[in-house]
């Protein structure tokens, strides 16, 4: 609670006590008035209304003075239609009504005017505390901003502002501290907690030479890091910037509420005036008792009920909580509008490489070889020892050891064919069919042909082939299944790869539609066609790794980039950024978006529904001001509590 909230709480308590005291000492007021009238020699019915009025004005002004002042200022600045004005008119109307009854010899009831103001202020207080608390909760979730960096100056570690650290500076990160700036580890090994960035709870192992990104927490031993970026360009700054600005991109629901509030308040004020004036006039014409008091009272309740604050507060809060909750799960949503689009998505288009598959090649199978698998890979890896081609790298990875270069000589790399080399004194050729033809080896075609085939011959004799293919990520199949489970109707895969490979991956994962052998520009065309041919209102999401598919990311209704740890291009091009490579996060993001939008709709429906009902009841005189206050404050509190639910993202 801040100072203002504490002060308001005091006002609320004092007023409540005063109100209760006055309520139960009604007799006392009459006796006091009688004494005064006796002592001063005036009539009782002259003294009583004044004393009654003055006594009740004390709590009324304690609780309501700022609302009244605000309403006056509003009128002065020609912005009169706000809730302060509604509350002022309603309570002052009730006060005048009470005074009128006192003067005409009845018994005026001031309690209601004060109670309404009291409840209104209680509601405002609660709202400010609740919003403050959720704001703090969300910022705690996003508590990745590093406060300092340890820089060695003259042999001593000093804490400096991360903003002042230049590129290439050596910084030290002790266990328990956040890495303040992106960089490369110069010395030290250990594990990092990346939960704040990726939502991943398992620590990540790191060693000297690894690139690390800011925002991770060092868990085990001190790390010495050479920075590769400025603080402002580091991952942590980009993410914070993105999340903090996310809620300024307004969703359609929020726009709707803003517009709604703009026409709603004047409309309600006009209807209230009509309610106060027309029925009594009609009754007068019909020679009935006009019942002015009763209709003015109804009109005032009408005003209290009508405050749109439940909507105006809870809708942006829901989106903010949704964005906060998502970022805690490692999903960055760039704006409320994207959360909305995401919830309406029914088609998800994937890029294959890097999204559904890991994007690095691995040895898949070995066929037709008279040698043992291990021996064949050893020979191939040795022959490719000097090459840095992705295929050579994958062969070397499969071999698992650093090839012993002394066993290899006379390496000859033939572009478009492969490599010839002398390994352990034997003439080895590793490459495609053209190479086999040129060395005269009788190669055999690979029966299932689903990857890149590398043939090997030793001294001109065919020694079998190695099939290398891109491996599917462990969660891809599950990801497609959970997308279907959360209402995605169509999944499409786009790839530049050969159709055989693409079809195999698609059927393995259960993808509905595949388009293969596409050039980057074809992908944009395909997405265009999919958007044009869609039947319903469903939106199309494109998921890519953000590196070479920026045009497609921006063409789709919503672009999702994955594996953004360290990739600026992805963060910039996409609307939704998944911090790690896990395709399961796509379904998670859609689930969060749907939940958030469901809460928004619940709140809109609930608030407007209850208010409409109470408005009708009050127009027919069936609702008193107590119900009116519930319709205003109670609804708002329930909506705020409901909004906070969007923060919870665990399944």
């Amino acid at each position, binding site marked *: 609670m801040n100072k203002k909230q504490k002060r308001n709480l005091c006002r609320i308590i004092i007023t409540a006590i005063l109100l209760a005291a006055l309520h139960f000492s009604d007799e006392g007021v009459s006796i006091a008035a009688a004494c005064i009238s006796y002592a001063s020699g005036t009539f009782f019915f002259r003294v009583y209304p004044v004393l009654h009025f003055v006594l009740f004005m004390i709590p009324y002004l304690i609780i309501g003075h*700022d609302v009244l002042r605000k309403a006056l200022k509003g009128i002065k600045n020609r912005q009169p239609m706000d809730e302060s004005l509604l509350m002022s008119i309603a309570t002052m109307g009730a006060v005048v009504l009470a005074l009128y009854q006192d003067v005409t010899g009845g018994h005026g009831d001031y309690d209601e005017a004060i109670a309404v103001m009291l409840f209104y202020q209680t509601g405002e207080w609660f709202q*400010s505390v609740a919003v403050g608390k959720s704001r703090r909760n969300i910022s705690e979730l996003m508590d990745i901003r590093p406060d300092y960096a340890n820089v060695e100056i003259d042999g001593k570690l000093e804490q400096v502002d991360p903003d002042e650290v230049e590129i290439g500076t050596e910084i030290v990160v002790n266990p328990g501290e956040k890495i303040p700036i992106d960089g490369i580890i110069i010395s030290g090994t250990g594990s990092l907690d990346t939960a704040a960035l990726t939502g991943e709870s398992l620590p990540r192992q790191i060693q000297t030479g690894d690139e690390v990104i800011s925002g991770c927490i060092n868990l085990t031993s001190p790390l010495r890091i050479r920075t590769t970026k400025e603080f402002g360009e580091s991952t942590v700054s980009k993410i914070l910037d993105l999340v903090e600005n996310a809620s300024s991109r307004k969703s359609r629901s929020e726009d709707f509420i803003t517009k709604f509030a703009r026409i709603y308040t004047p409309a309600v004020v006009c209807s209230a005036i009509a309610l106060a004036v027309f029925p009594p006039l009609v009754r007068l014409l019909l020679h009935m008792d006009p019942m002015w008091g009763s209709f003015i009272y109804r009109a005032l309740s009408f005003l209290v009920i009508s405050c749109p604050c439940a909507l105006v507060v809870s809708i942006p809060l829901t989106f903010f909580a949704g964005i906060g909750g998502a970022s805690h799960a490692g999903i960055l949503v760039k704006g409320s509008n994207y959360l909305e689009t995401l919830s309406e998505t029914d088609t998800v288009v994937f890029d294959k490489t890097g999204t559904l598959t890991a994007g690095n090649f691995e040895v898949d199978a070995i066929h037709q070889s008279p040698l043992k698998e291990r021996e064949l890979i050893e020979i191939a890896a040795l022959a490719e020892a000097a090459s840095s081609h992705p295929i050579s790298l994958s062969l070397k990875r499969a071999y698992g050891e650093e090839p012993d270069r002394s066993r290899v000589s006379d390496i000859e790399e033939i572009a478009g064919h492969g490599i010839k080399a002398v390994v352990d004194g034997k003439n080895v050729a590793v490459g495609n069919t053209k190479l086999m033809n040129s060395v005269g080896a009788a190669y055999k075609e690979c029966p299932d042909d689903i990857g890149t085939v590398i043939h090997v011959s030793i001294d001109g004799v065919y020694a079998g082939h190695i099939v290398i293919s891109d491996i599917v990520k462990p969660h891809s199949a599950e990801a497609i299944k959970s997308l279907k489970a959360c209402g995605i109707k169509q999944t499409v895969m786009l790839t530049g790869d050969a159709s055989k490979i693409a079809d195999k991956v698609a059927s393995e994962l259960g993808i509905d539609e595949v388009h293969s052998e596409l050039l980057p520009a074809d992908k944009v065309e395909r997405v265009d066609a999919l958007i044009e041919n869609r039947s319903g209102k469903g939106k199309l999401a494109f998921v890519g790794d953000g590196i070479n598919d920026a045009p497609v990311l921006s063409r789709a209704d919503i672009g999702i980039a994955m594996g953004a740890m360290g990739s600026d291009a992805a963060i910039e091009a996409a609307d939704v950024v998944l911090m790690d490579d896990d395709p399961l996060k796509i379904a998670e993001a859609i689930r969060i978006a749907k939940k958030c939008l469901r809460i928004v709709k619940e709140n809109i429906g609930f608030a407007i529904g209850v208010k409409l009902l109470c408005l009708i009841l009050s127009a027919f005189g069936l609702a008193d001001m107590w119900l009116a206050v519930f319709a205003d404050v109670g609804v708002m509190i329930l909506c705020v509590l409901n909004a906070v639910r969007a923060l919870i993202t665990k399944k």
Partner: protein
Amino acid sequence: MKKSYKIEVDCANCAAKMEEAAKKTEGVKDAVVNFMTLKMNVEFEDGADPGEVMPRVLKSCKKVEDDCEIYI
């Protein structure tokens, strides 16, 4: 030029009013008020001096919403 300021305001509606008022202030090209993070991002017109413009922004915000503060 863009600058970000911390603000203090009580309700979302009031924040929206502040945004409107700030946008209309002379020297301000665009302004966005973020109620949830309590920040105001102001984009100034070319050649405008933030030190001179911001007091006017504050003044016009105070006019529409008495109960607000911008920490310049």
